[in-house]
């Protein structure tokens, strides 16, 4: 309602979530790591053994790049949906915070940065495993980290829109079945999008997951991504627009 009173007001909200996470950090990281790794290793080596190399790299290396982005997306999405909803709707943590000098912008921004942070942990954990398996090539590897941050921010902001609209946890299933899962299949995570009908590949290329993949895959292979600036801008604009919508919808929900 009024301008920020506490400088960096999102930070104490972020720190609150970080403190909760720290108590359960190890099981949380291992839990987030297990599922994508099982898929990546199972499909990558099992299915990959029957496949020719893709763009000169083995299938498992191709899939590794997709897995970094998909698990970043999933971690940000789960946090912005289920965990934020618990804090907003079930535990009423946001109500408690809104009784202090912090405003709703601080709360939602704190949640955005926290969900992005958690997805960053998740992406980094996968990256460490991939590097240990020798599936990366060259020193551009470290540029994957900012690409993971941008991907996480975009999906955190998108998730917060759905969070603001959700009547209950059941509502989140639609987000996964209607948006996340189809997007994963047409964004070049599991296979190159030139296998798709042209119109579907075009839609896929516009989706935020594809922007992340377009940055991460070349970087892991030791190449500078083509059109990097466009993909970076696309993820930043997605974050900005989605955050503005999420904030507006959350304000309508909580401060009516």
């Amino acid at each position, binding site marked *: *309602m*009024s*301008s*920020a*009173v*506490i*400088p960096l007001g999102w930070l*104490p*909200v972020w*720190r*609150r979530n970080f*403190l*909760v996470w720290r*108590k359960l950090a190890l099981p949380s990281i291992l839990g987030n790591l297990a599922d994508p790794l099982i898929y990546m290793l199972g499909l990558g080596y099992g299915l990959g053994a029957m496949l020719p190399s893709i763009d000169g790299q083995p299938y498992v290396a191709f899939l590794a790049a997709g897995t970094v982005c998909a698990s970043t997306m999933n971690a940000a999405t789960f946090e912005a949906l289920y965990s934020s909803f618990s804090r907003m709707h079930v*535990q*009423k*943590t946001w*109500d*408690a*915070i*809104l*009784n*202090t*000098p*912090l*405003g709703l912008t601080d709360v939602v921004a704190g949640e955005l940065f926290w969900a992005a942070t958690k997805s960053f942990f998740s992406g980094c954990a996968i990256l460490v495993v991939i590097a240990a398996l020798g599936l990366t090539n060259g020193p551009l590897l470290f540029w994957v980290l900012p690409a993971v941050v941008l991907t996480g921010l975009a999906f955190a902001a998108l998730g917060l829109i759905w969070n603001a609209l959700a009547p209950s946890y059941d509502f989140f299933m639609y987000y996964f079945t209607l948006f996340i899962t189809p997007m994963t299949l047409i964004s070049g995570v599991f296979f190159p999008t030139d296998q798709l009908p042209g119109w579907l590949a075009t839609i896929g290329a516009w989706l935020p997951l594809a922007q992340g993949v377009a940055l991460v895959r070349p970087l892991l292979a030791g190449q500078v991504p083509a059109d990097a600036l466009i993909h970076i801008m696309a993820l930043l604009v997605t974050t900005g627009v989605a955050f503005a919508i999420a904030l507006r919808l959350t304000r309508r929900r909580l*401060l*009516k």
Partner: protein
Amino acid sequence: MATLGSPPALAITELRKTYAGTAVVDGLSFAVEPGTCFGLLGPNGAGKTTTLRLCLGLTAPDSGRIVLNGHAIPDDAQTARARVGVVPQFDNLDPDFTCSENLLVFGRYFGIADTDIRARIPQLLEFASLGSKADARLATLSGGMKRRLTLARALVNNPDVVFLDEPTTGLDPQARHLIWERLKKLKAAGKTLILTTHFMDEAERLCDRLIVIDHGRKIAEGSPRQLIAEHIEPQVVEVYDEAGGDLPAFVDGARALADRVETSGETAFFYCREPHELLARLAAAPGLRYVHRASNLEDVFIKLTGRELRD
């Protein structure tokens, strides 16, 4: 009490808020002197919680003016909230944290440095009689302890004004008395308390002044004593039909002995100034039990807001 002429801690003028065509707050005006306890009383759905949300700037009024600690609300609400504490109606403590962590994390929302909060935590826990529970997890606390921790949390920024939304609902008598005693201490320390409750004994004990609201409108205002003196006869005789007596016949015969008679189910309430003749008549009436007492704020409340159930 406040010194004469000091500006009110909270001043509300002609406040209106409508939800879906229904006026929830309908032209409400009142002012709260600094250092006093002010009560906001009313049946369920009277507009108490909405009024508090408006005062904190959590929702914008359709019209009217709110000034809290000299700050215009909602425009300047975040600045005003820096000097305000809130005990909400439903506990929203952090279940993942210990008592100390709850206070530490909440203090950070006010921009207070960790070292300053940590230095304050022991006295806050002591005030809430939770001195031995600093590292206790929230799940191990009783309802009364959680309520006290919520009160301690509301004081983490050393506020001038504390809003309390039904602070003792759901507590056992021991826990309620402890909360009341702490609230009196806060008032003695010069804090302004703004309290909603529908426990009339709570309001009578704590409030220097109070208003009764119903349907978003103020229907009475004053100190508990003033309200009792102005709105109701000083004595009440409650007559119960518990042993097969004929209550309706007794009420018909004794109606003239009281200023006012109300019947609710198996109980008749005789409101009067001079009950001797009524009591003599009751002593001779077979099958009826009775209680003779001074009238209280609850009688005023029922008279003003009626006996029908509010859901």
